[in-house]
């Protein structure tokens, strides 16, 4: 059972069951995953925006810094509002925009970590919900690339000023990997379930089809 799940069920099923391809499910697995996963990405970004605003006001050190933070947060909010509006109007959003926006999220978290001292910054925990959200929306390959980039960049930042805490750094990197892996695995399991549900519905339909219709 596990082997079937891990061996890209989405590909196997389309090969075996061309009938499904002719039915009007519309769009590939990837497009549908993105459609269904995008609300999660948008929701996570709202959480990040609200948290960033609260934290920016919590510890105000200088006027100039606060001004800059508020401008960045508002820009993010406007971008996310655009994506949210597209979702509410049920308009398809360009894949590249979604992928790009997620890359910007990761970049902003990384910049904040660097400004807050690298290893000692506690902002890195924002990587985890961000990665969890795109692991359930993006194809496996892209999730792997994004995660690998985060691991490399964050690992490098931590090692430059926290080399004495290798056990902690390894734990953080492992948990980032775990979140990406679990999200991606869940998505694959859902593909498997959807494929099985389609088969079940088809079988049931064929069993209940009147004989006359079959002859025609």
């Amino acid at each position, binding site marked *: 059972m596990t082997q079937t799940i891990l061996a890209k069920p989405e590909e196997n099923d389309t090969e075996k069951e061309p009938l499904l391809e002719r039915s*009007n499910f519309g769009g590939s697995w990837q497009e549908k995953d993105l459609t*269904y*996963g995008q609300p999660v990405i948008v*929701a996570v970004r709202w959480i990040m925006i609200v948290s960033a605003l609260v934290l920016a006001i919590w510890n105000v050190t200088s006027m100039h810094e606060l001004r800059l933070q508020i401008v960045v947060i508002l820009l993010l909010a406007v971008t996310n509002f655009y994506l949210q509006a597209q979702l509410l109007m049920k308009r398809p959003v360009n894949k590249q925009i979604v992928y790009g926006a997620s890359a910007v999220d990761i970049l902003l978290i990384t910049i904040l970590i660097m400004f807050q001292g690298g290893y000692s910054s506690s902002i890195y925990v924002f990587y985890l919900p961000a990665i969890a959200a795109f692991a359930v929306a993006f194809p496996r390959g892209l999730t792997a690339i994004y995660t690998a980039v985060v691991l490399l960049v964050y690992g490098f930042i931590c090692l430059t000023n926290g080399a004495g805490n290798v056990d902690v750094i390894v734990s953080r990197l492992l948990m980032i990997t775990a979140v990406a892996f679990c999200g991606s695995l*869940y998505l694959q*399991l859902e593909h498997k379930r959807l494929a099985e549900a389609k088969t079940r519905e088809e079988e049931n339909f064929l069993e209940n089809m009147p004989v006359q219709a079959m002859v025609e």
Partner: protein
Amino acid sequence: MKTLQTTEQEAAEDIFFGQLVIIYARWFVVIAMTILVLWSSETLTQMVIGILLVVPLIILNFFVHGRYLMEKPANRLLLIFLAVIDAVVISLIISFWPGEKGLFSQFYVFYYPIILAFTFVFTGRLSTIYTLFVLILYSAVCVIFSAEFLQQPVELERLVIRLITIAAMGMIGVYYYRIQRSRRKKDPGIDPLETFTTADLTTA
């Protein structure tokens, strides 16, 4: 669309399929804990105590993973019990592992994949209860083992960031679980009369 599956069937499938995610999340935590024990133990006693904490988790996860591979997956109650054990073991590490404790311990990060995996598999209500349980457990551990942070706004801010992100993991799981439930109803939604022609049926 007429749904062929009952709600009970769907819930049973959620647990049947989804528990693999919980099992792998636990494997990741076990690996991280083992590295921690082997790397950061300063005395023989520490290493023995650390390993004694990790070994039961390994045995339990072998048991659950083995049953899954034999297509005899664990039931709902056992999975909930194991998830509680996971949260308690992580909290014990945060509380008692040599070095920094409570809020100052860096091993709270183990909670994240465990919560995400749990909320992918269980219903919204159970997931919310589990997330709240972890949030309360972690806050209590921080207050008991590092109460001095309450006087420092910067440290309090750290705790708030962690609680927000832990809650966000729970929220992602619950939200996506709901999305997938509705997707299963809509997506394979074969309305036979609309979807297939008789020509399709004869070729099938």
